[in-house]
């Protein structure tokens, strides 16, 4: 199946053709590069912007005011922090105008560690972003969701923040996006720009791409389990899934929830799972202090305190200024499979 970069690219193509997507822009987003991660190659509405994140986010908000649909990319979330006041405005305009203005725009930014990206290519943005009301925030863990969540963003009448985990952009998932050719080599030849001179290259888009929207606000149970619930998103879904598969062989049954939408999140799914397993661990890689998982912990305690059979836990990134480059530094900074496995073993062993 398509890797995540190809899936997003096909979604944007679908948007250009069917969902009035008129502008896809950001640093290096247009030809010849088509995005630092090739996500925007071959699109007809993509163009390069100045190297100016404030201009990029401001332009997206303005296009929303003009009811012109766009996806604006900030190449790495590490560089989005100088746009915080504009993100606040983007998330606020409908509310500040007492409902007068819709603000349909999508910001896409690349997040997370996992590729040895050093201090300024490894940040996460979910903790900061979930502090900014007014957006709908999504983060896919596989290609089908990457495709479907982008379509959902393009249909929204509100600001959407699309967080793409950089470690997954080259990862192929199981299954096919409706309309995608089954042969991955064929897909690559159709929609991946060649190396070298691309001036005459044009993509051959799959003709049968369909609307496979993934509804915003709906999580997905990736592994069903009885003993403990793991709630996560992005690249840690894959890690949690592998841990669940390993522990299953030992008789420890782990339920893995891929949240998919960070805001507004699928509390019903989390809540029902906690009521079933009575044990929960929240996992993400953003820094642990005022982490989004802390909010989920708070809600768990307030609503399910007397149901829990073990203290709920949060596995998150260390509260350090950045992710160090050396292998041992990155591994010590963000949750690893071994950390998740250890936490699962401990929580199922804990008795009230």
């Amino acid at each position, binding site marked *: 199946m398509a890797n995540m970069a190809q899936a997003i690219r096909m979604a944007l193509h679908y948007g250009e053709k069917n969902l009035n997507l008129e502008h896809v822009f950001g640093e290096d987003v247009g030809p010849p590069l088509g995005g630092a991660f090739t996500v925007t190659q071959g699109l007809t509405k993509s163009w390069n912007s100045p190297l100016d994140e404030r201009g990029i986010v401001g332009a997206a908000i*303005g296009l929303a*005011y*003009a009811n*012109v649909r766009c996806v604006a990319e900030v190449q790495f979330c590490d560089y989005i922090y100088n746009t915080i006041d504009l993100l606040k405005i983007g998330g606020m305009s409908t509310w500040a105008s*007492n409902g*007068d203005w*819709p603000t349909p725009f999508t910001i896409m930014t690349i997040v997370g560690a996992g590729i040895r990206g050093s201090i300024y290519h490894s940040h996460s943005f979910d903790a900061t972003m979930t502090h900014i009301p007014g957006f709908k925030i999504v983060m896919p863990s596989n290609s089908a969701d990457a495709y479907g969540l982008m379509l959902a963003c393009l249909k929204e009448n509100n600001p959407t923040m699309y967080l793409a985990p950089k470690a997954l952009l080259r990862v192929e998932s199981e299954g096919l996006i409706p309309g995608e050719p089954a042969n991955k080599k064929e897909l690559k030849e159709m929609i991946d720009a060649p190396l070298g001179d691309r001036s005459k290259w044009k993509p051959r888009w799959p003709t049968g791409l369909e609307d496979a929207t993934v509804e915003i606000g709906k999580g997905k149970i990736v592994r069903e389990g009885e003993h403990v619930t793991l709630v996560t998103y992005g690249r840690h879904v894959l890690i949690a899934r592998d841990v669940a598969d390993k522990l299953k062989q030992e008789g420890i049954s782990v339920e893995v929830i891929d949240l998919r939408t960070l805001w507004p999140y699928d509390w019903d799914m989390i809540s029902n799972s906690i009521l079933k397993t009575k044990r929960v661990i929240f996992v993400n890689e953003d820094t642990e202090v005022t982490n989004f998982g802390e909010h989920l912990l708070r809600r768990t305690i307030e609503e399910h305190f007397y149901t829990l059979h073990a203290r709920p836990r949060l596995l998150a990134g260390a509260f350090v200024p950045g992710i160090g480059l050396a292998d041992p530094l990155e591994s010590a900074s963000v949750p690893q499979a071994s950390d998740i496995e250890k936490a699962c073993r401990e929580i199922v062993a804990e008795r009230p």
Partner: protein
Amino acid sequence: MVKARNLEERLIRMYKQNDGYFWIGGPGEEAFNVPLGMMIKKGMGLDHDFLHLHYRSSAIMLAMGAEPIDSMRQMKNVAADPYSGGRNFANHYSKREWNVVPVTSTIETQYATAIGTGIGQTKKGCTGITIVNGGDAGTAEGEFASSLVWASRPDFNLPILMIVTNNQYGISTPACTQHGEKNVADRGTAFGIKNAVIDGNDVETSWFALKEAIDYVRTERKPFLLEARVSRLYGHSSASGANFVAGEDDCLVRFQNQLEKAGVLSRKEMDALHETYNTKMIEESKQVKQESMPSGDTIYDHIYYGQKGRYW
């Protein structure tokens, strides 16, 4: 101009009478802002002008046809405030029907959002333009530089009129202590952006300069940077007292003298006009005082478009 001045002075009185928590506005900018408001191609959507205003723009709104009582409603933060439903400060307008995007208290971010409507208006055949205004101090912010860069990209110029109303101060800080450039508008030259510096306290000068700039942007589909030297007659905001500042050039006094000298209006007629607005606005402010506050249970309304109540 008289109506706009009366409104600002009424809003200041409301603040001082405890009928509002904060005042900020634009008394002293009427000679520039009224002509601007009269030249707007008013309406909704790309074929009309988009306005990314800052908080000294009441005279623009009134010249476009806004009702003074609605500004008083925002001052008193009543539920019927049509611009924000009691959520925002005075003079923080928002009116989708007229392409007036929500005014923010953040300085200069409007120059970044203006880029977006400007891009939208590059569409073939589009006749609307984008107009953004702000003060001189805010031009130190990055978003002002952003607008210069984005509006002047080769082969992708944007139809944006960038206005800087230069009152020589950032709150209490004189511009001359912070800015080495002689004119803010000079920065346009480096980007190939046509620009001008004018006496914004003079109605005729403002009228013709605005006409030239707007015609240029509308027909050439290119940016123009217009710096208008204006006065700040009641200081920065209520935070600095909102008291009349002696020694500032008052554009209304100047225009009235011109009109009287030219025999267009007599002093008596002008005084009568002032009194008419004053009386009307006193009555309107009394009415606003009787209107209801928004209910606390509405705080979750409109976080998303069309959504009401707590959603999570």
